[in-house]
């Protein structure tokens, strides 16, 4: 739902942007011919497909990035030395739509889904349904050793590892140093809270950007607030639709209080209820830009925009970063956790052989580092952040590493989509949130939705 930047831009540092599709596709006429043949076979519908013999092909469904995953696929194809080749296909932008595309095909036992870039919140659902191939103990050890705990937790269901952490993400607090100075606060000071931030912004007439649109990013925000207040949205997820729903708690009410406070203050953007990441970032660049919680991509994006002259050249130098704000001064915050885990489809032809091998190749520390430098997406292994090259490219690398270490995953449940959509539905728009009623109502609604007693 949003606008924002670029379909493509010449990337700095000589990386040609060839986006989701730099992959070559010179076979267009062939495709058209196949289509004609297909039409001729209308009724049968056999048509198309068919391998080109020889090398086994692994299909890797990737979330959109700047082309980094496609380049990794090439690298790992080369490394395989002809044993297999990896072909990538891009999924839609929005995490919910990515799942939509995959889950229906998995349910239909599609054997074309060899490797999938999964948002951590969808692993449990696919694992529980038997759509993913679990890793054995030896593999699991290899994929989880030296990996952020939240990533491992999100990839595990009922004690088994179903996906290999590939990259990890978190939000930190981004702010304009000049604004913080004028408002008289130091966001980097220990114990900086949401209340302090909102009050300061209101006082000095600056904005606080967050993601308040009715989409997964809003759930990210709610979950981070609830977790930072010491609570959680649901627990005992293994009981399926009988899981215990904990959002109606002091922590849930505290989260509601903060959202309401921001949404009803003049520090909130005019379109908070439809803002996603890019709107928040554009507001930070605006004349009243002050603070923003956002993912790590911000750094690259801000520098690119400054380079292209669409924002003031001085903005990147004015950009400060600090840990995710706290809910209570005496309790460390639990920033959001995101990223991508690699799952192997349970019905693929090469699930026990080449697919595992390819995942191993993609997730080596070297490739994670390469991907981080290429795409700007943080690695899933803390060690990568100590690399001098990474430190040079991302001055806030240490903060991001520490934030991912402290991050709280969103509820790990096979019913995640329902839980998330139900919470969003009762907590949206942000200005309507009421600490007295919203947490309770959302708990009731989540319950009803899980039992299929309500529409969503």
């Amino acid at each position, binding site marked *: 739902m949003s*606008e924002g930047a670029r379909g493509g831009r010449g990337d700095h540092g000589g990386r040609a942007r060839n986006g*989701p599709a730099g992959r070559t596709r010179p076979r*267009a006429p062939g495709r058209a011919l196949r289509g004609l043949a*297909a039409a001729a076979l209308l009724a049968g519908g056999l048509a198309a497909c068919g391998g080109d013999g020889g090398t086994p092909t692994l299909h890797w469904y990737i979330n959109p990035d700047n082309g980094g995953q496609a380049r990794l696929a090439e690298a790992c194809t080369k490394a395989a030395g002809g044993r297999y080749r990896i072909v990538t296909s891009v999924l839609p932008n929005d995490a919910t739509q990515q799942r939509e595309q995959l889950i229906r095909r998995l349910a239909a036992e599609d054997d074309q889904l060899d490797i999938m870039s999964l948002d951590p919140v969808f692993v449990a659902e696919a694992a529980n349904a038997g759509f993913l191939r679990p890793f054995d103990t030896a593999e699991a050890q290899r994929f989880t050793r030296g990996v952020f705990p939240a990533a491992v937790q999100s990839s595990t269901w009922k004690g088994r590892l179903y996906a290999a952490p590939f990259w990890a993400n978190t939000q930190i607090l981004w702010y304009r140093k000049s604004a913080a100075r004028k408002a008289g606060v130091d966001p980097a000071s220990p114990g900086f809270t949401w209340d302090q931030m909102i009050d300061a912004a209101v006082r000095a007439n600056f904005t606080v950007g967050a993601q308040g649109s009715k989409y997964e990013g809003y759930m990210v925000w709610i979950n981070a607030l609830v977790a930072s207040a010491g609570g959680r949205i649901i627990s005992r997820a293994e009981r399926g639709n009988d899981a215990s729903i904990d959002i109606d708690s002091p922590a849930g009410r505290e989260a509601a209080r903060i959202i309401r406070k921001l949404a009803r203050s003049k520090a909130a953007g005019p379109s908070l209820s439809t803002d996603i990441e890019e709107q928040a970032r554009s507001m930070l660049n605006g004349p009243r830009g002050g603070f923003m919680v956002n993912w790590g991509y911000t750094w690259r994006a801000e520098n*690119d925009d400054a380079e*292209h002259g669409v924002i003031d050249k001085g903005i990147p130098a004015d950009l400060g970063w600090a840990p995710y704000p706290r809910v209570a001064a005496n309790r460390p915050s639990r920033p959001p956790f995101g990223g991508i885990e690699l799952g192997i489809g349970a019905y693929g032809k090469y699930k026990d052989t080449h697919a595992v091998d390819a995942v191993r190749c993609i997730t080596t520390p070297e490739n994670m580092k390469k991907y981080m430098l290429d795409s700007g997406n943080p690695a899933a292994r803390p060690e990568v952040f100590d690399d001098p090259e990474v430190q040079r490219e991302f001055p806030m690398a240490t903060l991001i590493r520490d934030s991912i270490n402290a991050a709280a995953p969103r509820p790990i449940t096979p019913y995640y989509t329902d839980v998330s959509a139900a919470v969003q539905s009762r907590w949206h728009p942000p200005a309507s949130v009421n600490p007295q009623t919203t947490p309770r109502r959302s708990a009731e609604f989540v319950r009803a939705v899980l039992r299929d007693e309500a529409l969503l």
Partner: protein
Amino acid sequence: METGRSRALWIVASLLILLWTIFPIVWIVMLSFKQPGEIGNVRGFFPRDWTLENYRTVFSTGLFTSALINSIGISLIATFVGVVLATLVAYAIARLDFPGKRLILSFALAIAMFPVVSLVGPLFDLWRDLGLYDTWPGLIIPYISFALPLAIWTLSAFFREIPWELEQAAQVDGATTWQAFRKVIVPLAAPGVFTAAILTFFFCWNDFVFGISLTSTDRARPVPAALAFFTGQSQFEQPTTAVCAAAVVVTIPVVVIVLLFQRRIVAGLTSGAVKG
């Protein structure tokens, strides 16, 4: 009959109509020439720095080029098959006497009113079982069936107007059946068939619901679906300007068709629908 004042009024009205219909198009064209980073940072109707970057982006993006090929191929095949099938039906309805004629017409009408979204779930399962999911035929078949009603009405209305006696007259004059059909009927029927083809093509070209539900890769995904799934530099960034460049590219053929065949389309839409 027109007085000077009312003449001026009609002219003003015509100009307003031109503005109203063309304006949104001009707007996407403007957006498509903006720098990607201008969105959210520099506002205004016209681009600050004109750039072709977005066009370069969409054409270097496999997602779009393959969607374009898919859309063109799928729509053309569906149009061709659909119009052939509709011609057969329309001919039967206009010329032959057989039971179920009215039933067929009512059935076609019902299909035209069908809520497509109700079908996508079951259709998805069916296509999976038949191996049609994410293939060209997987879209061609639904396109045909939902475009058929429009084509059938348009054509049967056209065919009713054809003076079929001429065919017999030609035969009396010594032409063979085939000659009579080819020399007399085909030229009379061609405009109608052609109109039906344009309308069917527009219908297929416009589809969105099937496009997003029955495809999953660039193997078959058509343009409207691809537009909605366009992706930016990272998963958080939205490619507004690139979407617009792509939109302009797929709008050009529509504008050309409209410019070339304006009269036929108007005739087709009006004759097929309401007859006095």
